[in-house]
């Protein structure tokens, strides 16, 4: 909690946001938006939210920016000049934003004092999580234990959200090659010629990225990390190769059918661990009953192992879906050479 960093970053965020919206060149807007995400990540690290910052760095600053650029690549790059004024919409936007803003500021006048350990959220529920996490689950990273155990049900659905998004993108965009579509003017980027330096470095980096990702997943119990972050980094290693070479390069190694299978398998692992708990007589996702089948574990350690299992499931799904979404957007559904 270093308030000077807080002040500076917050002050930088607003111009970044306004620039991202106002820029006429979509590539610049996408990059500015990536910078905005990165500043958010800094802000949250400074406020102590390391897992959140980790995820935002991977997902927001990384994947979102790449998806944006890939999408813009397939459509127009410049924002067109407006032919007709949009006064009505602008007024509507200003008044809606203004009204909601006033309500929110009015609400904020009543908020408890910021950053004090005495406010209701810090007094009511979270002390239980903080004091009991080691005793209940043997996992020091409280965020992981809440995410994967106490509120593990939410996380299962969160993984299903990612899964649904992948399916949605595939269903909306996917088409077989051969049908002509109306293309607008596409900017041919002259600097995307293949560079052996980039290709070699990326190729060397990829296995280290993947190793790091596996570490993040496995060590999520003790350090910031976990299934999502690890999964995104795994997916990013493939996307990096696709950017350095072309989409075909990745698809030869991880084709469409396998991404679909892996996406399903990941969430299935999660839901099956929960269902296994059901069949063993406990409630859904009650890992402690897993100690009946796992050899030589107490119920507490069974929770820790159950958490690891679901985190692995999450990582597999997230990796597969990231690759799936990227492949669809980068190739506009055609699964050809792509970007």
């Amino acid at each position: 909690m270093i308030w000077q960093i807080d002040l500076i970053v917050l002050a930088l965020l607003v111009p970044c946001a306004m620039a991202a919206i106002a820029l006429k060149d979509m590539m610049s807007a996408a990059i500015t938006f990536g910078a905005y995400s990165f500043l958010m990540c800094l802000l949250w690290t400074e406020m102590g939210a390391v897992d959140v910052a980790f995820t935002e760095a991977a997902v927001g600053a990384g994947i979102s920016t790449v998806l944006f650029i890939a999408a813009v690549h397939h459509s127009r790059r410049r924002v067109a000049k407006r032919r007709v004024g949009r006064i009505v919409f602008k007024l509507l936007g200003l008044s809606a934003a203004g009204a909601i803003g006033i309500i929110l500021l009015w609400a904020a006048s009543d908020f408890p004092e910021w950053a004090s350990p005495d406010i209701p959220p810090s007094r009511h529920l979270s002390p239980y999580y903080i004091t009991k996490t080691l005793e209940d689950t043997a996992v020091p990273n409280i965020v992981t234990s809440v995410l994967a155990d106490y509120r593990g049900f939410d996380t299962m659905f969160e993984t299903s959200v990612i899964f649904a998004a992948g399916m949605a993108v595939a269903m909306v965009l996917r088409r077989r090659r051969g049908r002509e579509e109306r293309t607008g003017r596409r900017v041919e980027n002259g600097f995307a010629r293949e560079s052996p330096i980039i290709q070699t470095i990326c190729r060397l980096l990829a296995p280290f990225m993947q190793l790091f990702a596996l570490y993040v997943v496995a060590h999520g119990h003790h350090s910031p990390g976990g299934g999502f972050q690890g999964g995104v980094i795994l997916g990013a290693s493939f996307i990096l190769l696709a950017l350095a070479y072309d989409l075909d390069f990745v698809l030869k190694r991880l084709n469409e059918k396998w991404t679909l299978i892996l996406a399903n398998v990941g969430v299935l692992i999660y839901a099956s661990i929960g269902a296994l708990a059901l069949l063993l007589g406990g409630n859904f996702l009650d890992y402690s009953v897993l100690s009946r089948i796992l050899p030589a574990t107490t119920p507490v350690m069974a929770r820790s192992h159950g958490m690891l299992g679901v985190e692995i499931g999450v990582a597999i799904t997230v990796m597969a879906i990231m690759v799936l979404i990227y492949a669809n957007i980068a190739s506009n559904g055609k699964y050809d050479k792509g970007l």
Partner: protein
Amino acid sequence: MEDILARYNYWIYVLLMMIGLYAMIAKNNLYKKVIGMSIFQTAIIVFYVSIAAKEGATIPIIQGAHGAGLVPAIDPAVYVNPLPHVLMLTAIVVGVSTLGVALAVILRIYRQYGTVEEDRILEKLR
């Protein structure tokens, strides 16, 4: 100083949210609307993370628990509130999922109409 900073934090999140909301409603280009949507969602995340902050507290990982052995009594005031972090992990994931779907739909619209400007699309629909 802390007092002004406390209010400052809340003002900025409201301001960011309003920027995002304005962009979603008023902007013509569909991509700009999607950027506005993301800004809107990240502003809400700033709000939640601000709830979690605690003066002088450290990250929510129990110290000294890495190795085997007894851990001293845990004082909640030493660690930042972990619950909003968990909620916001979910919110980030939901945000990127919506972004992916929105981009896919924009590409589909472009395939169909050849433009991503709302007013021209509405003209073609008439």
